């Protein structure tokens, strides 16, 4: 259904409609909202990574003047087990409820055990200090090896591994097992001329959004509530809060603020249900904001992983067999992104025989949340590193090796279906031609290349298009704008309606003012909500044609819509002047009332995204420090609605991936306490660490979208890990399989190689 056409505004680099407010400080983010009479809520967090709660004594705290409410697990209803109908790793509502406020047990350092609301932040702090909690401290289980060991301490004694061929007879920390296979793996390896294998580890990392979680909740004595918060999905905040607290969905209105980054980390709730309980108990609005320390310790980072990959290939590079053993940390509750990690790991390649085994494993760390292409960066880091070593061993150019095995339209993906039009080979061919692929390298410098893949998501969206009395346009939608999506929505409405971009304004409306929308996540907004905007605009055009026909007294089929106006079809013998959108709008009262277009959909066929990244690095042999000299991101966007923001996604994802590869990691002590819960020590890339990030957008139209759009937001973070690691391998001659490739680790490897 993709329609080849010349676009008027699609593909131009217009200024985003919410831009001025964001460069002047006017835009309101999560922590910027306040209400009269508002209290400040704070959370008391567990000082232990794994412990049973014996007793909580709040008597002294409640006597402090200015303390209006104290909440513990006893103030929250018991929530039954029920799967959260989101995507991967969404987990269970019962776990969500106890993650929000612990009941009998804490499963990570920083787990919420009590909360207070007070007249000031300082008094709330004093009250927290006055709450006494008795714990029975248990052994923390801090990594995959410890968690999966036969005699491991159990984090949940009632947890039996789901998905095993034989029902397990005893509980374990492995929450789930999944297997994907095709062909005969033994035969595939037997057919190989070369077999390579490697085991790779990636650390716990955080999305690192700059805006901490924040909300204001106000619930009245009749049970009706309003929540203002920063979230990727206000409809999900509503459903999750309603489940955790046992409230009616219709009684909760969620108003999304601007959101200061999410990357998957703001697709669930932490503070909102707590603020609601405090508001209910105090009878006043309650504001809660996390500190950066709390964000690191008690929101949802991404899984640490251990991945073993094995590849068999013919001398000419043809893959004969691939196997993957993948273990993903879930945190204190089940539900990691192991499944998509397993589904992505071999997705870019054609291979007749494969076996993929995935494990979802509990450890005493915060429950993981989605992080940009959840699961894919870790498993694909492992696979793309091994392919790099294979290319070196076979003396085949890494692009040629990938091209030889690359999927294209009609290939069967390792995760099941056959691909429709995809742009993987186009990305590889572009990489070959890119000047950066042949740029000269100096001593201690190396070049690495890797592929990235993500499914992208469709799901439910709705939109309304209102035509104002002068023909200007208001789009009402319900997908929080994190990266300029209002501009994309306005571009698509302007394109369809044939009006200038500047005449379209976009409102991201709250749960009572817009139709339901799934989260801003899965790279789905420009694709799915965009499709709803296109359809709602087409609804307007149909109404305009009908009204023009009625005005002219001719048949509706004889009217066309062109360049923002209704005209009679060529050859129609009607003595009429074209009617513009503004003219039809001005007369709408006489032709049937206001012009209101709408669309609701469950978007199918999001169109998989592929990328190739190339990194050039210099490794300082004295210090082990890695400098990124050049970075090239090449990605199939299907159709770039606003190319500057597509490039921005590619550049931002590249740099997050560079951080993951080189520096970022949660560092724990033996007791399971994170030692670097701040931006100084959790070292994310800063401007002086980086070069410009070169981008090439490839456009292979997605046949399931009218303009050919694919999601672009997540693919960018998948390839950089291996691209950087492969560059370090090329620069040093040493394969260091564990991330991050921080100076101490590189220095140790260089010294070990010397010895």
């Amino acid at each position, binding site marked *: 259904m993709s329609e080849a056409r010349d676009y008027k505004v699609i593909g131009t680099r217009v200024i985003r409609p919410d831009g001025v407010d964001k460069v002047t400080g006017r835009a309101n983010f999560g922590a910027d909202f306040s209400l009269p009479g508002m209290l400040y809520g704070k959370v008391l967090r567990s000082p232990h990574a794994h412990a049973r709660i014996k007793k909580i004594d709040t008597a002294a705290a409640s006597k402090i003047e200015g303390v209006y409410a104290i909440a513990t697990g006893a103030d929250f209803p018991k929530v039954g087990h029920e799967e959260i*109908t989101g*995507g*991967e790793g*969404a987990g269970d509502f019962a776990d969500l409820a106890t993650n929000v406020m612990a009941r009998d047990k804490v499963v990570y350092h920083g787990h919420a055990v009590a909360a207070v609301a007070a007249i000031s932040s300082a008094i709330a702090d004093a009250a927290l200090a006055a709450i006494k909690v008795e714990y029975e401290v248990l052994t923390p289980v801090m990594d995959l090896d410890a968690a999966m060991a036969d005699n491991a301490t159990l984090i949940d004694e009632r947890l039996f591994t789901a998905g095993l061929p034989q029902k397990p007879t005893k509980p374990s920390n492995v929450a789930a097992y999944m297997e994907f296979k095709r062909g005969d793996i033994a035969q595939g390896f037997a057919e190989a001329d070369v077999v390579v294998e490697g085991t790779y580890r990636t650390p716990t990392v955080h999305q690192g959004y700059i805006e901490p979680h924040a909300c204001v909740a106000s619930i009245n004595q009749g049970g009706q509530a309003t929540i203002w918060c920063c979230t990727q999905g206000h409809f999900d905040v509503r459903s999750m809060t309603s489940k955790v607290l046992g409230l009616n969905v219709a009684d909760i209105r969620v108003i999304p603020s601007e959101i200061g980054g999410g990357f998957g980390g703001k697709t669930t709730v932490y503070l909102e249900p707590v603020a609601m309980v405090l508001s209910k108990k105090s009878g006043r609005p309650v504001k809660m904001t996390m500190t950066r320390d709390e964000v690191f310790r008690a929101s949802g980072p991404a899984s640490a992983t251990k991945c073993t990959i094995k590849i068999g290939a013919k001398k000419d590079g043809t893959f004969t067999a691939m196997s993957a053993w993948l273990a993903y940390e879930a945190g204190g509750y089940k539900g990691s992104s192991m499944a*998509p990690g397993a589904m992505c790991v071999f997705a870019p390649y054609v291979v007749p025989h494969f076996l993929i085994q995935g494990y979802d494993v509990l450890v005493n760390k915060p429950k993981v949340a989605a992080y940009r292409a*959840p699961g894919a960066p870790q498993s694909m880091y492992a696979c793309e590193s091994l392919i790099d070593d294979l290319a070196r061993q076979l003396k085949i150019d890494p692009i040629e090796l990938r091209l030889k095995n690359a999927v294209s339209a009609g290939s069967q993906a390792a995760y099941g*279906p056959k691909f429709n039009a995809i742009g993987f080979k186009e990305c590889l061919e572009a990489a070959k031609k890119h000047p950066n692929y042949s740029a000269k390298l100096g001593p201690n410098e190396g070049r690495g290349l890797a592929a990235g893949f993500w499914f992208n998501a469709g799901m439910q969206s709705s939109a309304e298009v209102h035509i104002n009395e002068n023909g200007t346009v208001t789009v009402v939608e319900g997908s929080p704008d994190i990266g300029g999506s209002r501009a994309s929505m306005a571009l698509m409405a302007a394109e369809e309606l044939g009006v200038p971009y500047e005449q379209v304004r976009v409102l991201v409306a709250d749960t009572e003012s817009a139709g339901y929308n799934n989260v801003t996540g*899965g790279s789905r907004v420009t694709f799915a909500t965009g499709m709803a905007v296109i359809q709602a605009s087409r609804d307007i055009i149909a109404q305009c044609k009908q009204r023009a026909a009625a005005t002219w007294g001719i048949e509706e089929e004889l009217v066309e819509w062109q360049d923002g106006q209704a005209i009679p079809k060529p050859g129609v013998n009607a003595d009429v002047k074209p009617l513009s959108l503004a003219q039809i709008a001005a007369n709408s009262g006489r032709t049937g009332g206001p012009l209101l277009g709408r669309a609701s959909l*469950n978007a*199918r066929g999001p169109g998989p995204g592929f990328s190739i990244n190339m990194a050039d690095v210099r490794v300082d042999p004295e210090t082990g420090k890695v400098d990124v000299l050049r970075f090239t991101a090449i990605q199939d966007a299907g159709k770039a609605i606003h190319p500057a923001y597509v490039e921005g996604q590619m550049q931002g994802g590249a740099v997050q991936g560079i951080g993951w590869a080189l520096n970022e990691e949660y560092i724990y002590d033996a007791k399971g306490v994170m030692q670097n819960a701040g931006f100084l020590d959790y070292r994310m890339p800063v401007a002086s660490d980086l070069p410009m990030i070169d981008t090439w957008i490839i456009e292979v139209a997605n046949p399931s979208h009218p303009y050919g759009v694919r999601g672009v937001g997540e693919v960018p973070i998948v390839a950089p890990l291996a691209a950087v690691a492969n560059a370090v391998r090329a620069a040093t001659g040493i394969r260091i399989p564990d991330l991050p490739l921080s100076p101490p680790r590189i220095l140790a490897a260089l010294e070990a190689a010397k010895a």
Partner: protein
Amino acid sequence: MAKVFFPDHLMQLTAGVRELEVRAESFRDLVAKLEQLYPGISKVLIGKVAVAIDGDIIHDPFLDPVGPDSEVYFLHRIEGG
């Protein structure tokens, strides 16, 4: 007849059958036919997994048409970040 494929983790529900052919006009119809073959399977296939019909992934399928030559793959649900 549409070709239907199950991933490994759903084959416990199909007594180990990985693929089969089913005559169906819509996803709902297809699941009803599968329910006759494998009683209880519809509880999982509706609302808990995604599907790809002719390569297009659908998150919450139900009324979606299935063609006579369609390929239908059941998948773990992916939402993304």
